[in-house]
């Protein structure tokens, strides 16, 4: 038995996209315990509810995260719509679904690139981000922003997608799908990728359940949880099944996210096929509502929870956002126990950490 020592890991580390600090208690080359600490980039977004009115907050909350921004804005709007007691027009629901799935695609492609980078496959990393760029172009074409969409409002959406643009999205994602097939073959069949991902960082179904893991991390351990099945927005009209894997290792998490990109493409096809031909894309809400609401949505990284309490004043009393990365951190600490030091970076990446979301 070797001597125990502590290695500080992060907040600045080549593999980390965002700052998280983990104290790794190691014995020889093996991690015995991992103690995370967060709080390097706290911005106090939740306390801004005192100073910004309910409509301005849509834009503030959207900027919680630079990757899954659309989901945050949409989640807040859904929560406020619940308090106002209004239902958004059907076309707005489909538009939100299309944008949300495009945002999931770009988030997962970004993550696949980061994963390839983490296990040292630079070429694959470039290809993932090259494909992601096409998704970003579609997003810019329809919303005007590349990662911050700013199209949500309480009661619907601000911008419509024209039929020509819908057709263009429909054909573009088919091209993206063809390019993804090449990437998929490499991720799933290449033995160098397999040797870095298989059997590493295993979380069993029981552990994932007990530690409250969310999103692809939970689904990779065999838990069938996908908040989209709750049927919010247009998901109630679409036909899909959550992608589940049983292995619970790094490869399973990679597989789930990779297949979810294909699933998103399928969902966008379905949504474009079913989108109603209406002109109404939003309804106006007036006044300061009273009430509280609690909404759960499926972000690319997992389940996000929104809570709003309003009491008839121009400013809401309380806004709370539980992000998926926060739910996945206990799972990360569990999988790091017993890991080789050289695999730590890879495991941190496989939970898709979004620390800026977590610290808000």
């Amino acid at each position, binding site marked *: 038995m070797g001597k125990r020592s502590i290695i500080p890991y992060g907040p600045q580390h080549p593999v980390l996209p965002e700052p998280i600090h983990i104290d790794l208690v190691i014995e020889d080359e093996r991690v015995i315990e991992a103690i995370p600490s967060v709080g390097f980039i706290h911005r106090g977004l939740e306390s801004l509810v005192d100073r910004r009115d309910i409509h301005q907050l849509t834009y503030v909350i959207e900027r919680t995260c630079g990757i899954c921004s659309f989901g945050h804005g949409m989640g807040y709007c859904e929560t406020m719509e619940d308090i106002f007691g209004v239902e958004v027009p059907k076309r707005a629901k489909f538009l939100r679904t299309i944008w949300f799935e495009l945002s999931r695609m770009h988030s997962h492609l970004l993550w696949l690139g980061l994963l390839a980078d983490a296990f040292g496959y630079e070429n694959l990393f470039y290809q993932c981000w090259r494909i992601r760029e096409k998704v970003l172009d579609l997003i*810019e074409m329809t919303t005007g922003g590349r990662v911050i969409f700013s199209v949500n409002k309480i009661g619907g959406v601000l911008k419509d997608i024209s039929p020509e643009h819908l057709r263009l999205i429909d054909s573009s994602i088919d091209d993206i799908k063809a390019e993804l097939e090449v990437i998929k073959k490499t991720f799933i069949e*290449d033995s160098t990728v397999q040797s870095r991902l298989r059997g590493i960082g295993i979380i069993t179904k029981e552990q994932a359940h007990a530690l409250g893991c969310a999103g692809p991390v939970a689904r990779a351990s065999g838990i069938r949880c996908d908040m989209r099945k709750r049927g919010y927005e247009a998901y109630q009209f679409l036909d899909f099944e959550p992608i589940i894997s049983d292995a619970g290792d790094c490869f399973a998490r990679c597989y789930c996210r990779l297949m979810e990109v294909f699933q998103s493409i399928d969902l966008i096809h379905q949504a474009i096929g079913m989108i109603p031909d209406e002109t109404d894309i939003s309804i106006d809400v007036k006044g300061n509502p009273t009430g509280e609401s609690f909404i759960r949505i499926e972000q690319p990284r997992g389940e996000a929870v929104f809570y709003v309490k309003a009491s008839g004043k121009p400013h809401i009393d309380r806004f709370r956002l539980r992000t998926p990365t926060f739910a996945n951190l206990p799972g990360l600490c569990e999988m790091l126990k017993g890991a080789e030091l050289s695999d730590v970076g890879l495991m941190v990446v496989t939970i898709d950490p979004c620390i800026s979301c977590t610290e808000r």
Partner: protein
Amino acid sequence: MSVLKYAPEALKNLFRPPVTTSYPFKPFEPADRTRGRIEIEIDQCIGCGMCVRACPSSALTVDKNAGKWTINRFDCIACGFCVEKCPKKCLSMQQFYQEPGPEKNEVTYTKSPEVLAEEARKREEAAKKAAEAKAAMEAKKAAEAAAAAKEEK
């Protein structure tokens, strides 16, 4: 399972043209909806301050009497909420981005002297009309009071 699954694609990439563009030699092509930066047609502005109240990052100030509209472009988050709220639709979102700069300075737009003079003239006229109306009202009240006093007698 095999090694070098990506090798054929990687080799093909050697003969493909570059995906990236050589900015700034080839200019950036924005989409129609690209949210670049806010521009104002200042002479159309009525100084109502709706944009100031809408702005989530407090980047705007308006001085109605001086005909000035000020934006701190480095505070602006280009969300487009002011464009949405503007009742005169004199605010617009341009497709080009704000250029970087060494200071977080503000940019002030002032109405042209002709428009300012016209507005001052209109204000004066309105004030004159209001004063006339007030005088007429007072005269009417005084006449009514006098009539009432006469009746009482």
